[in-house]
């Protein structure tokens, strides 16, 4: 009887124990669940909760105290808390001008934490012309979606994840006007029937828990286990992995419910269906799911073991074919087959591995193979592999392979070199910065090695009696999560550990347990995906939030000061805002460098930090870019950006920077930009990718790819000269990546008005942002 002393004590008869064992190992099938029911009920509950709980709450609109420790996480609440919730009574005309039908949008209207990967559910209270209503929907910023009806709920599924931190509007264009009744008397002048107004629902997407900022402001080594949530019942997800956009690719048993599944019957609006019928013997499908476990769509019928391309736009997976064969294929995230690369006998037992954007490694018949996206096999690779692991570097064409004759790092670039690793090296994981970590098992413990791909050193050893496995790097490459297992069967000890890159500070991640394994950090660092064993031996996938430490760095301290400053401004409290300025900062605002409390006739509604960078010129000084929104009636109307220079009161480097007091010393502001007039930049991120850098520019809208190029997005040096750059575009993530080689200094990112969304709307005004490259 597995791990349950209560049952051990209760049942001593072997026949009873046999029944109990069967019960413990055979869970009932997962109940059928409408994938949208969870969101639908949540929307209704939250509407009721806001009506009842919030109204009776004794505190004000801002539920946090203003201690420095809480300011950083409270910033999100500031941004969210100021959007005014308005009651919504939305009526759409019936088909023949009969009774009007209400759209119950209160659960969505002005909601400020809408998930970026979640379907949007809009309930209706009565029958409507579903096709007409679905066709009338317009979403701004421009977003391509699939629409389905589930009962009286219109479910809008974005084809790509929505942009974070972004105000969206869903507009129902007026439907057919009621036919005017002929005037009985032509001499009597009829009052014209007013044209129905479009119905608009506004909402704002969540702010990423980890702001897209330049390290060291976010340190994965300082996070704590937050709230956990089971993705699905054990047995209903067989494998799971993150996409770069923070959604989940899952292998699920065939026949699971969800949009696009053969069992989904509620849809009346045609939707794109995944390519091709499943093979007759298919037992699994590959699904795209949200981080909450909501099935979004089947990507590969009959597929298994998917792997997301580093850019996020494509996946590779195995798909079962006739004659007990399997195809290695590439699909986009709509489930459209892009290429079939290889056909093998039997279904492989491990996922293919992407090497950059255009090559895939896999193991077949005990040999390593590499194939490009045209199906051309790489020659000259003669490496035996049995059960060993493969892992590809995200920053260079290097592949770590646990081969039958030893573990090696293959350079698949120009050098073609092979580097032999420490004997027994296994469990490889590459960081976002190109570091490689692996384990070397010892008799009674496990050694952890970390290196740059060329040289490695042992950084930690597990306690005797514990073995380590399942490495996963934090997205900032400063720490690792791993699973630890007692080898003596005692089951003692936590099972997930957080370890610094240098092997120091091993810390339990999660409550003490022996149930957790296979941690995978989400790309944004806000969630950890892992498996958890239940008492019956089943294995379910869970996620846990990774809560960042509030003040673990000087940058966060500076951010907290900015949060305090912004809170005062949003509150219209000029005195409190001025208290966060030093003499130079106050003079800058008084001289008109920017408006402290907003231009006349409007008020600041919310803000979020876009960038945090070391200033490059002063110790303990940071350049914080903030985006500030002005709104009316709870709807964001425009925004502008400020670059705030935040300096420590003492300019000396402090051994305890978190104890420093920071003030705002200088400010520069961009012109105001109107929202709803073309795509805008959501965030800018600089990532070191030796020997150069990547400047990653996220947009809020689906863009026309042909308008994103080195002519329309540029990096300029201090003299205004355009820097040589290669611009690539990931349409699925609204992400333009500019690959550059920049020396330390200050540069300017320029996004021109030639960039347009899928509807042809251009960026309203040129967007400029400073880039500081440190040493």
């Amino acid at each position: 009887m597995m791990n349950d002393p209560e049952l051990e004590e209760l049942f001593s008869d072997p026949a009873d124990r046999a029944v109990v064992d069967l019960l413990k190992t055979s869970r009932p099938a997962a109940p059928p669940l409408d994938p949208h029911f969870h969101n639908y009920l949540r929307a209704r509950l939250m509407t009721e909760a806001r009506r009842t709980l919030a109204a009776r709450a004794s505190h004000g609109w801002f539920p946090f105290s203003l201690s420095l420790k809480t300011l950083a996480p409270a910033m999100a609440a500031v941004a969210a808390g100021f959007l005014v919730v308005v009651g919504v009574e939305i009526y759409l005309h019936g088909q023949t001008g009969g009774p009007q039908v209400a759209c119950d949008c209160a659960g969505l209207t002005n909601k400020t934490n809408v998930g970026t990967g979640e379907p949007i559910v809009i309930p209706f209270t009565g029958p409507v012309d579903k096709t007409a209503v679905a066709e009338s929907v317009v979403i701004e910023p421009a977003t391509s979606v699939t629409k389905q009806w589930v009962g009286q709920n219109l479910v809008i599924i974005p084809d790509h994840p929505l942009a974070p931190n972004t105000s969206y509007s869903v507009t129902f264009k007026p439907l057919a006007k009621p036919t005017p009744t002929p005037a009985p008397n032509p001499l009597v002048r009829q009052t014209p029937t007013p044209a129905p107004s479009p119905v608009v629902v506004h909402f704002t997407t969540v702010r990423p828990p980890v702001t897209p900022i330049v390290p060291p402001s976010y340190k994965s080594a300082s996070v704590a286990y937050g709230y956990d949530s089971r993705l699905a019942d054990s047995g209903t997800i067989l494998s799971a992995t993150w996409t770069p956009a923070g959604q989940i690719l899952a292998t699920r048993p065939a026949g699971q419910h969800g949009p696009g599944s053969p069992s989904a019957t509620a849809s009346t609006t045609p939707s794109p269906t995944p390519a091709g019928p499943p093979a007759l013997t298919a037992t699994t499908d590959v699904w795209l799911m949200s981080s909450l476990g909501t099935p979004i769509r089947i990507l590969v019928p009959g597929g298994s073991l998917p792997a997301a391309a580093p850019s996020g736009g494509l996946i590779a997976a195995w798909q079962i074919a006739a004659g007990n064969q399997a195809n290695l294929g590439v699909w986009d995230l709509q489930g459209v087959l892009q290429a079939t690369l290889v056909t093998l006998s039997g279904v492989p037992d491990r996922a293919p591995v992407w090497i950059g954007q255009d090559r895939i490694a896999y193991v077949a018949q005990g040999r390593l193979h590499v194939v490009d996206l045209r199906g051309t096999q790489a020659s000259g690779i003669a490496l035996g592999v049995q059960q060993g692991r493969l892992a590809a570097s995200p920053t260079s064409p290097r592949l770590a392979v646990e081969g039958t004759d030893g573990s090696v790092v293959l350079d698949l670039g120009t050098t073609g070199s092979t580097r032999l690793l420490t004997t027994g090296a296994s469990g490889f994981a590459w960081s976002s910065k190109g570091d490689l970590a692996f384990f070397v098992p010892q008799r009674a413990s496990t050694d952890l090695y970390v290196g740059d791909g060329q040289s490695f050193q042992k950084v930690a050893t597990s306690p005797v009696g514990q073995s380590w496995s399942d490495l996963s790097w934090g997205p900032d490459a400063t720490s690792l999560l791993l699973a630890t297992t007692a080898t003596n069967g005692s089951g003692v000890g936590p099972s997930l550990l957080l370890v610094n890159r240098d092997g120091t500070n091993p810390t339990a991640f999660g409550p003490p347990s022996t149930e957790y394994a296979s941690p995978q950090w989400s790309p944004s660092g806000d969630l950890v995906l892992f498996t958890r064993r239940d008492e019956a031996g089943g294995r379910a996938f869970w996620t846990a939030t990774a809560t960042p430490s509030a003040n673990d760095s000087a940058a966060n301290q500076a951010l907290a000061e900015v949060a305090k400053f912004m809170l005062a401004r949003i509150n219209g409290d000029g005195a409190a805002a001025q208290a966060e300025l030093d003499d130079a900062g106050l003079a800058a605002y008084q001289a008109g460098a920017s408006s402290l409390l907003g231009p006349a006739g409007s008020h600041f509604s919310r803000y979020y930090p876009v960038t945090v960078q070391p200033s490059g010129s002063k110790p303990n000084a940071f350049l914080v870019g903030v985006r500030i929104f002005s709104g009316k009636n709870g709807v964001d109307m425009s925004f502008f950006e400020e670059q705030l220079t935040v300096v420590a009161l003492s300019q000396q480097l402090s051994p305890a920077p978190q104890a420093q007091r920071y003030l705002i010393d200088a400010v520069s502001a961009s012109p105001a930009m109107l929202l709803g007039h073309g795509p805008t930049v959501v965030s800018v991120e600089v990532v070191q990718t030796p020997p150069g850098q990547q400047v990653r520019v996220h947009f809020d809208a689906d863009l026309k790819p042909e308008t994103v190029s080195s002519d329309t997005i540029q990096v300029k040096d201090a003299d205004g000269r355009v820097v040589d750059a290669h611009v690539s575009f990931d349409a699925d993530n609204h992400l333009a990546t500019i690959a550059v080689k920049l020396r330390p200094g200050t540069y300017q990112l320029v996004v021109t008005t030639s960039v347009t969304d899928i509807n042809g709307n251009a960026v309203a005004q040129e967007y400029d942002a400073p880039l500081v490259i440190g040493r």
Partner: protein
Amino acid sequence: MPEFEERDLVERAKQDPDAFGVLYDRYFPQIYRFAYSRVRDQSLAEDVTSEVFFKALRNIKRYTYSGHPFSSWLYQITLNAVADHYRGLHGEVDLEEGASLPSTAPAVVDEVVRRDRSRRIWAAIDQLPRQQRAAMVLKFNEDRKIEEIAHILGKSSGAVKLLLHRGVERLRKELPQLEAELT
């Protein structure tokens, strides 16, 4: 979730809708699963689950920590909601000793001939009396401790042990083919 975090979250949920939303996200899967295990009908399970969470929302300010997980309270509400549903259908039936609740699950005899051992034994559990079935589901599907089940069902731990014992014994007796296979 550690106990202290759950208690903190529940306290916040008494005033903060978003905290209530976190509770909902956390407990929705198991409450829906438990509701479905009791009513065996998707639409009914949705109704019961809705009722549970709306009742929880209306009454959360009165919730006080009793040494048991918050989920125990939700399970209690679920049981009451299911009972209310069947009272509405059938009047004040004696659910405690009633043969079994109406079920859309196939009869045991039909199930036994099927190859799926898991489905067979869980279909058999569907035929147990209400309290036995609740105890069996909470123990074997929801992995609850006996003390927590006792709290949910409003019984002593000894009574729950008896329910589990009777449930297992009855499975042995009512599934001769299965028993033969097992022993």
